[in-house]
């Protein structure tokens, strides 16, 4: 009885996470076209039609681009909170009512031995929320697209086995970069994205003795680099007395290439 996962893709061009247990398989977000999503599933040798459901975090296009197509083509149930359903209605197109499910923030849904818990984040969307997967005492957390990590969020996500944690930008690179000022302000705001340093500070508050792997996710293509994110997070954690490589490791994600299917 195990829970496995693959981060199919992560970044501002599109996001998708695949999670499976022995009985069920789940997709969180589908930020690519139907064809691209099929190709990503092909790379991890899994079948989209067998999904037990697609779980939506929020209505931004890099998270929902393929939702409508996949739901219609494979008759898949889609779960989102009410506000997100309303906000994404026009973007995802018509999905049959019997496939539309409401999954409200701060509630839990059970699929066999897997409990999926939703929690709210701070982002400029209708009602953004992310998920914690619980299975046989193990915990997998997905948290991206948040301007900051509140104490409430920290309470929900603490001491997980695996974190898929946003490490969006380096503040100095963002400031020096070519983005217009209003975009920079949005990213840096409380409803934007967390920087490498802020992510590391939040991580240092939530990692526990169970934590084995932290994936740095949703990296900005223009204002971050994989190695820089890793260095910044590692050094900030080390400053706070957490030695990367001893108890847990830090891992990359990629905007196009899925991570290997790994057991929690």
């Amino acid at each position, binding site marked *: 009885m195990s829970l496995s996962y693959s981060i199919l893709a992560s970044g501002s061009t599109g996001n998708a996470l695949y999670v499976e247990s022995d009985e069920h398989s789940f997709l969180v977000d589908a930020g690519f076209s139907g064809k691209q999503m099929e190709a990503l599933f092909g790379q991890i040798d899994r079948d989209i039609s067998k999904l037990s459901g697609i779980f939506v975090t929020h209505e931004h296009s890099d998270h929902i681009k393929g939702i409508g197509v996949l739901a219609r083509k494979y008759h898949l149930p889609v779960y989102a909170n009410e506000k997100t359903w309303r906000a994404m209605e026009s973007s995802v197109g018509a999905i049959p009512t019997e496939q539309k499910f409401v999954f409200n923030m701060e509630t839990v849904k059970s699929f066999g031995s897997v409990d999926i818990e939703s929690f709210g984040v701070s982002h400029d969307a209708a009602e953004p929320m992310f998920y914690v997967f619980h299975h046989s005492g193990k915990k997998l957390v997905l948290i991206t697209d948040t301007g900051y990590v509140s104490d409430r969020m920290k309470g929900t996500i603490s001491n997980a086995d695996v974190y898929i944690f946003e490490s969006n930008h*380096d503040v100095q*690179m963002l400031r020096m*970069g*070519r983005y217009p000022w209003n975009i920079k302000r949005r990213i840096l705001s409380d409803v934007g994205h967390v920087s490498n340093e802020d992510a590391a500070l939040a991580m240092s508050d939530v990692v526990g003795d169970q934590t084995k792997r932290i994936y740095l996710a949703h990296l900005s293509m223009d204002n971050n680099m994989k*190695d*820089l994110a890793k260095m910044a997070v590692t050094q*900030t954690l080390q400053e706070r007395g957490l030695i990367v490589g001893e108890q847990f490791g830090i891992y990359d994600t990629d905007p196009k290439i899925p991570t290997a299917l790994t057991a929690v």
Partner: protein
Amino acid sequence: MDWSKIKTIFIITFLILDVYLLYQFMKIRDANKYEFITEASFEEKLKADEIKYVDLPKDPIQAQYLSAKPKVFNQEDVDKLKGQPVVIRGTGSTTLHVTLEKPLKITAKFEPAELSTFLNDNVLFGEDYQFGEKSEKDQSITYFQISGNVPLFKNINGMITFKIGEGNQIVSYDQTYLVEMEKLTDKEEILKPLKAIETLHQKGMLKSKSNITAIELGYSTLIQLAASQVLAPTWRFEVDGKESLFVNAFEGQIIQFNSDEKSKVE
């Protein structure tokens, strides 16, 4: 309708069409001419402001982001500096403070060659530094560390600062040194120097009648992390043989070196 009338109608119609096409042609040609003028106008503006510059590299240049760590000095390093009183400073032991037993006389004008023998024979990794600047205000001479034949501009973790005492003599120096220089990204084409000059001109950093006397590509600190730093390719423009202006060669931003902002890693 007779044939002659049809002919006349055709001739008039085609004449109108020709006039219209000629009009369109002239419009497009004028637009192209205007674009050409716009492209040329920046160099014209420099000419109008009597701003001169040395020959610029014409071929595209590629560079990449680098990362580096400040060297932590130890007793072994101190032992190599025989006969010189040395103190390792800073909580991270990243600075060597060396007092010269025999102060070194330099000329008032100072030429970098005056220090080259001393650097090579008496300073740790001395061959990895090149002359950077002389400050009358601080009574100091700064050498920048070089990496891959390019200087690391004003990098507080990669420089030597010689202190000038009474009688124009060098009395001591502080040394920092960057190690574990690694490539962070693949090489990409950097901004052409003329584009960087345009930024300096637009931001009012280049006064009229300025003379850009030297252009040099190097690296400057983009991000200062707790135990390392990220370096970005940087253009340096020497104006009137004195002041230096710096532009990030990827993003085109003007770099203002500020000792508070780019705080030292210790």
